[in-house]
């Protein structure tokens, strides 16, 4: 049986954060119920045969904003239709503000075993500045509840935020590490088109962000957190996000919900971004993107694998695509010696390379 990852998109929030360009709309009971009807319809149509589900991920939006029953119905349907591995990682993204003991209990009961908090910062001023609706204290409360029920908790931080400096980030890291959580994601802010931050003309200080990133990497390493992917850090290997690994290794995944993406049997599929189309749609809500050509598949493989500390398995890459990467790119590799290394027959980024990886990857494509 082929391993499969499932992504479920919950496109509702209580308020839009100033940096967010993801597909999401304001929470309303009516919309939510129509949406979940459509979502269940979509899941029901999917043929799970031949797959073993290794991970399920509820992302958003804010999955914790909807009633837990909604989430549970989705999970029930998936369980009914699909074969789910006993070790499956089942994650739900939560905003500390909408997390509660009640939700924690029912999530756990339903088999969810990983909580990913959108913390972003522990500085209340910064949180307010970027339109987050929780405070650090609210997060503390949510986190302590979560710890009672879950042994795999992650927190997201963002670097490059307005008002942030080296000291505030250090405080963020100290606080998060002291809570004893297992996983931390650190995302560099990108001011996307159409976001409030973009409209107000906010520009990320790239040098400062690069400094923040390297400080974070150093600090977390000292606390036993390993950077296993450019933005992701875990205490032990077992706390690595298995779901994300499916993306990076070009494994099969199916995305349900508005704007969700799937990659199955070498086909990329993109769901509509229009709420109306989605709730009314049957099959027209899905758009088949062209199946990547072999050369594109090779490029994707490089692009995704280099994000991870494991890097690219050169031997299997060469075999799969009938290439000889090292000799083809020997000139580039020599020039990029400061940023790349070959170790255990794997091509990996060096520390200096992680934060400028686009520029490096582009040269290897």
């Amino acid at each position, binding site marked *: 049986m082929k391993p499969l990852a499932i992504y479920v998109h919950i496109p509702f929030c209580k308020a839009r954060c100033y940096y967010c360009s993801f597909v999401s709309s304001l929470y309303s009971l009516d919309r939510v119920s129509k949406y979940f009807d459509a979502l269940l319809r979509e899941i029901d149509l999917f043929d799970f045969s031949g797959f073993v589900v290794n991970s399920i991920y509820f992302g958003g939006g804010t999955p914790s904003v909807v009633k837990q029953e909604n989430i549970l119905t989705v999970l029930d349907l998936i369980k009914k239709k699909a074969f789910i591995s006993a070790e499956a990682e089942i994650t739900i993204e939560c905003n500390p503000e909408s997390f509660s003991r009640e939700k924690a209990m029912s999530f756990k009961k339903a088999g969810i075993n990983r909580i990913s908090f959108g913390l972003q910062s522990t500085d209340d001023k910064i949180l307010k500045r970027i339109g987050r609706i929780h405070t650090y204290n609210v997060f503390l409360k949510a986190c302590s509840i979560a710890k009672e029920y879950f042994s795999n908790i992650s927190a997201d931080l963002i670097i490059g935020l307005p008002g942030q400096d080296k000291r505030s980030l250090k405080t963020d890291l100290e606080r998060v590490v002291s809570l004893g959580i297992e996983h931390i994601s650190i995302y560099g802010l990108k001011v996307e088109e159409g976001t409030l931050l973009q409209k107000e003309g906010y520009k990320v200080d790239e040098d400062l962000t690069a400094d923040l990133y390297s400080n974070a990497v150093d600090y977390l390493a000292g606390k036993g957190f390993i950077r296993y992917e450019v*933005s992701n850090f875990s205490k032990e290997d077992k706390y690595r996000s298995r779901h994300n690994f499916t993306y990076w290794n070009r494994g099969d995944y199916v995305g349900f919900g508005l704007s969700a993406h799937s990659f199955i049997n070498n086909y990329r599929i993109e769901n509509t971004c229009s709420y109306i189309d989605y709730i009314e749609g049957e099959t027209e809500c899905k758009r088949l993107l062209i199946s990547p050509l072999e050369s594109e598949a090779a490029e994707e493989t490089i692009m995704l694998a280099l994000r991870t500390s494991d890097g690219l398995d050169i031997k299997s890459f060469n075999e799969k695509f009938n290439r000889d990467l090292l000799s083809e790119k020997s000139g580039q590799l020599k020039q990029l010696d400061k940023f790349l290394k070959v170790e255990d027959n794997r091509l990996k980024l060096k520390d200096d390379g992680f934060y400028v990886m*686009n520029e490096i990857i582009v040269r290897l494509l």
Partner: protein
Amino acid sequence: MDRQKRIRNFCIIAHIDHGKSTLADRLIEMTETVSDRELQEQLLDSMDLERERGITIKLTPVKMYYNKGGVEYELNLIDTPGHVDFTYEVSRSLKACDGAILVVDATQGVEAQTLANVYLAIENDLEIIPVINKIDLPSARPEDVKKEIEDVIGLDASDAPLVSAKEGINIQAVLDAVIDKLPPPSGKEDAPLKCLIFDSYYDNYKGAVCLVRVIDGEVKAGTKIKMMASGRTYDCVEVGTFSPQPKPAKSLRAGDVGYISASIKVIAETAPGDTITEAGRETERPCEGYKEIQSVVYSGIFPADGSHYNDLKDALEKLKLSDAALHYEPEVSAALGFGFRCGFLGLLHMEIIQERLEREYNLDLITTSPSVTYHVHKTDGSMVVVTNPCNLPPVTSISYIEEPMVKADIITPPEYIGAIMELCQEKRGTFLDMQYIDARRVRMSYRSPLAEIVFDFFDGLKSRSRGYASFDYELDGYQKSDMVKLDVLLNGEICDALSLMIHRDKAQARGRILAEKLKENIPRQLFEIPIQAAIGGKIIARETVKALRKDVLAKCYGGDVTRKKKLLEKQKEGKKRMRQFGSVEIPSEAFMSILKIGDDN
């Protein structure tokens, strides 16, 4: 002879924007040469670029019929370009005429190009009819302007028609004056053929077509013609006139203006200024004044994407077919790869060619700093002509360098004299003379290096005189000058495409601006890039492009790999537009940014 008495060959000369093309349109309308359906503003400017820029580049003759006193006259209007870059073209079209209408704006009066054009007309023995245009404007002062024409130019303006070409006022008076005051042609129909080529154009079906004024004799399809400068002979295939579209005719005879096509493949073989005669029955004396067109400004033109070299080559070949003034030869640059060194009549000509390459041939170009032609005298007594800074001989072998000079005439209201003098001094000009035309305008003459005039003088003049000053220039020999080659080093290597010739006094400032501009326009890369400006081995300015620190896509949102891939593909595509110079990638914008540097920066 009766036939010739009913012909008038004339042109319209004017300072830019004084209404030359509008008046031409009215004359054409008035004589019903074009049907209303064909009416389009500025009929004679057929290139889109000409209409957009409001300038005339290519010459177009048009034949009109006008009835006066029961006699039908044939009027041949020969258009002239209105920009200093094209002085040679103006002088050629004047040679094809017997008279000229001088249009002067009733609000502006005599301007620098008015004078320059009048002098050209007088040199060519043309009868001149002054016409005062734009009398409909509230600020028109026709009587003052008449007086100016008499005082400054010395032409009798007492009978000058007062017209408004825009409003169509008094146009008939212009046509009457053309017939009454301009002389008819007086060639001999039975003499051997003698035609002046005053322009040529390329037609996809007919090949190079000559625009001619027949001086003596007759030419028709079948005549064996001979170009007197080149000695080449052809069989005439078709002759005709313009109305304003080409229209075949039986023959062209002494006094006529029209075209000759003879399946000539390359336009360079129809050199304007050359004389066409009949092979075997040649005229004794060719028309005077033929010169080969000399390029005044040179620049390197390269495809932004190196793989488009052949497209650029094809485009230049095609442009050359229709533009004999364009010169080009292959050039190889370490930074830009394969391209062409091109010679132009002036900066406007250069811009037009670049624009046509981009628009009509859909090319993305990188151009290098324009250069004039330097005479480099070597210590061994020999002289080399340098049009590309990269070809400058080693400094140790140079005795001295001469640069081309111009004599510039500027006409301005007196309140801007100070600012203009300052500008001329900055442009290394030498003051020659200053005369008051009247209480409101002054004519100033300067001798100045061409390189200073050609690049951004006109913009500077406009801004410092709020647009009131006008100017014109003519080449005026060479002068010894302390020129140096300013180099730019990227990561320690001289980038040939960025080198330029400059006067030593200005090198320091220019070097600093160059380095700053490049820093702004070269994106941060994986490695730090030092940018240095240097004269000889001496560094005079330095900037650094810091190493790239952040270039990463943070989140792989919901498995949306395509978004990430698109971004990387865009980045990869962007690299194609970059020039790899050593380990440095230079975007085309960086090359282009330094072209816009003026002394005013």
